[in-house]
């Protein structure tokens, strides 16, 4: 018996909603669907908050450590002698924090979607999928073991597929959904191999035993290695690849910008706040393993994160699609979180990076969701995605403007807003041990401020375009989430996060590092200033700059042609040189062999027909020769034996 048995309800309530809606998707009126879905996710939200309250406040740390509690679980499947997969809920710092994030954003998006999707034919379908996603994501975050994570990992993947391809009549949406699914699936293959490898050596999936440093001695981690890596390093790198796929780390990031084909609320929920950080969450879940068993794998995580962060930020500065800028920004920010994990150590003060990463995950979820929802509101109002066709919107969409500004400031690291605090912790953590990462992140901070304000100025200031319909603020259903999230974007920075979430369960007392904060703030201001200078009003300067930096700009604008590389590999190499030849080979060689066997038989039959000449004497000749041959053979045989 424990106090958290009810936690299984948190994911199951949305599942119920999904089933109810999907089986009645032709029958339910829109209002009923909206009310049902929103209230169900609302219940989940309340339960999540209650859980957090109970876990962090009522229960608090036991002997100075936050315990990991199995809410409830049952054996789902036995995999071999020792291994079995359980389904259940694991309540600990990270999962409770994630519960809050997921249920909050999900609730906001639900409310927002009531307004956003109001005129859409697929209203019921949309809410069903949202519920499905919420179920999968909530189950993922409270998974008790890595295999359960994998299961729901796939399910969130498919929900994401369904939602990206929501406008399935649009070829680009179909292509995007396909791409998202296949790229993440590709990464999941490595995740699966990682799970196979690590479970083979540790005989367990369960986080409680798997990530407990006291158990590490008992694990049988010796064995053949690959490329000189130790077994845990290999396994953890494989798992990280899985996470990288879902979290759109370089070079597996290509699906995320395309995923913006989905409706904006989906982008906010899945591709900004929750699913895409699953990779970070996964690494965080197994952080003890990374940090203690395979520091080299963790370093890789850090470098990949930092590089991705920079890479995506550079691309973001050139994009003109509203949501794509945000998508690259998301990639960049997740890179931040990954980098933070990578630079972190395990336990006590060394675990600052871990805490910072989680902190940033939390705050980022709030302001990035807000940004996307704001983008949705704008796009809803002006019916275009291109920021070139926007401008001066601050006059028409006041509330949207303000909330968007708050979010932009938050992501840019403006002092006092949530992003400022979390970023500060990350940069501090990097500063301690990884100078390269530290400088990269610093540059990225500046770039972030720059491209976000570029976006902001281009959309809300700059030259006003001529609009067919006068844009206006959206209705209440959409505004309320914006406002709530804006508030959260401001206040969430003031949560003493380290007290609640830390690498080893012990509360971590953090404080603002002023030296670092000042530097990073300055960098941000520089970014903002440049953006102000270039984009507040339309000027020729930008085109001059673009001309000056022509090649680089073009490369960045084309996302460094990574997509093309993939396209080339898949279409021109795998499809054209492997799959098509195999199809050909199968038809003509393998099948051909069978046909040739038949052909040989028939042809032989045709060729030997002359034997049956109709001439009696030829028959007799065959008769006599056969006798001679057989008797000669028999006599020879007899004599030789």
């Amino acid at each position, binding site marked *: 018996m424990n106090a958290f048995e009810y936690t299984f309800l948190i994911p199951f309530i949305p599942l119920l909603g999904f089933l109810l809606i999907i089986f009645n998707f032709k029958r339910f009126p829109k209002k009923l669907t909206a009310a049902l879905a929103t209230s169900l996710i609302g219940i989940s939200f309340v339960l999540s908050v209650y859980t957090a309250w109970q876990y962090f406040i009522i229960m608090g740390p036991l002997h100075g450590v936050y315990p990991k509690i199995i809410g409830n679980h049952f054996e789902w499947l036995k995999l071999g002698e020792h291994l079995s997969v359980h389904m259940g809920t694991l309540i600990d710092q990270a999962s409770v924090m994630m519960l809050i994030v997921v249920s909050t954003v999900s609730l906001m998006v639900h409310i927002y979607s009531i307004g956003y999707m109001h005129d859409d034919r697929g209203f019921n379908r949309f809410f069903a999928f949202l519920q499905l996603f919420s179920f999968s994501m909530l189950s993922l975050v409270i998974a008790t073991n890595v295999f359960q994570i994998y299961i729901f990992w796939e399910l969130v993947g498919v929900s994401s597929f369904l939602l990206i391809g929501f406008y399935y009549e649009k070829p680009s949406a179909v292509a995007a959904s396909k791409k998202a699914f296949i790229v993440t699936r590709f990464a999941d293959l490595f995740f699966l191999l990682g799970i196979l490898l690590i479970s083979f050596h540790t005989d367990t999936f369960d986080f409680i035993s798997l990530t407990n440093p006291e158990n590490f001695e008992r694990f049988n981690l010796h064995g053949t290695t690959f490329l000189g890596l130790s077994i845990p390093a290999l396994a953890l790198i494989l798992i990280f690849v899985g996470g990288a796929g879902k979290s759109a780390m370089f070079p597996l990031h290509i699906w995320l910008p395309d995923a913006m084909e989905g409706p904006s609320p989906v982008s906010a929920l899945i591709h900004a706040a929750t699913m895409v950080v699953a990779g970070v969450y996964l690494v965080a879940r197994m952080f003890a393993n990374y940090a203690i068993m395979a520091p080299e794998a963790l370093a890789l995580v850090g470098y990949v994160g930092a590089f991705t962060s920079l890479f995506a930020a550079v691309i973001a500065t050139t994009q003109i699609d509203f949501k794509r800028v945000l998508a690259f920004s998301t990639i960049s920010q997740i890179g931040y979180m990954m980098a933070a994990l990578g630079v972190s150590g395990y336990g006590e003060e060394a675990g600052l990076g871990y805490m910072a990463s989680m902190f940033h995950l939390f705050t980022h979820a709030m302001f990035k969701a807000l940004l996307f929802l704001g983008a949705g509101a704008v796009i809803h109002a002006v019916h275009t995605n291109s920021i070139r066709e926007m401008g001066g919107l601050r006059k028409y969409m006041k509330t949207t403007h303000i909330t968007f500004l708050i979010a932009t400031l938050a992501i840019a690291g403006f002092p006092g807003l949530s992003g400022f605090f979390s970023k500060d912790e990350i940069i501090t953590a990097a500063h301690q041990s990884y100078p390269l990462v530290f400088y990269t992140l610093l540059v990225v901070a500046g770039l972030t401020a720059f491209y976000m304000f570029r976006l902001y100025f281009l959309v809300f200031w700059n030259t006003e375009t001529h609009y067919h319909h006068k844009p206006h603020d959206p209705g209440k259903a959409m505004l309320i989430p914006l406002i709530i999230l804006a508030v959260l974007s401001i206040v969430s920075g003031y949560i003493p996060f380290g007290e609640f979430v830390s690498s080893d369960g012990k509360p971590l007392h953090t404080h603002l590092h002023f030296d670092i904060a000042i530097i990073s703030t300055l960098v941000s201001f520089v970014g903002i200033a440049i953006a102000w200078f270039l984009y507040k009003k339309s000027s020729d300067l930008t085109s001059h700059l673009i001309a000056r930096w022509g090649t680089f700009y073009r490369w960045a604008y084309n996302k460094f042609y990574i997509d093309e590389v993939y396209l080339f590999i898949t279409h021109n190499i795998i499809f054209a040189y492997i799959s098509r030849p195999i199809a050909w080979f199968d038809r003509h060689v393998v099948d051909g062999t069978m046909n040739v066997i038949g052909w040989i038989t028939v042809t032989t039959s045709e060729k030997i*027909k*002359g034997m*049956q*000449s*109709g*001439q*009696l*004497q030829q028959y*007799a*000749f065959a008769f*006599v020769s056969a006798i001679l041959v057989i008797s000669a053979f028999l006599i020879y045989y007899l004599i030789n034996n």
Partner: protein
Amino acid sequence: MWQDISLQDVLIVSTLMFFSGVYGFLTRRNLITMLMSVELMLNAVNINFVAFNYFLHPENMQGMFFALFVVVIAAAEASVAIAIIIGIYRRFKSINIEDVSKMKF
């Protein structure tokens, strides 16, 4: 005189007869001649039976009797064959075996 004839001599004759029968059967185109060749073969066999009986197993008469039966049956065979050959001649206006090959392959 005839006591000097050995089994070997007889066998040479019979074998020659047999295979000249076979040869005739294979090469002659006339149906009647082919029938005659077969008779030659059967008679060679008869010689064999009689000779073996006389030289090797004189204790009973099995070979002799066998030869007698062969003669009888050969006669029956010949009669049927001639009947059919006559029929053939009516149909084909020929008793050349090469003409009698409507069915083949």
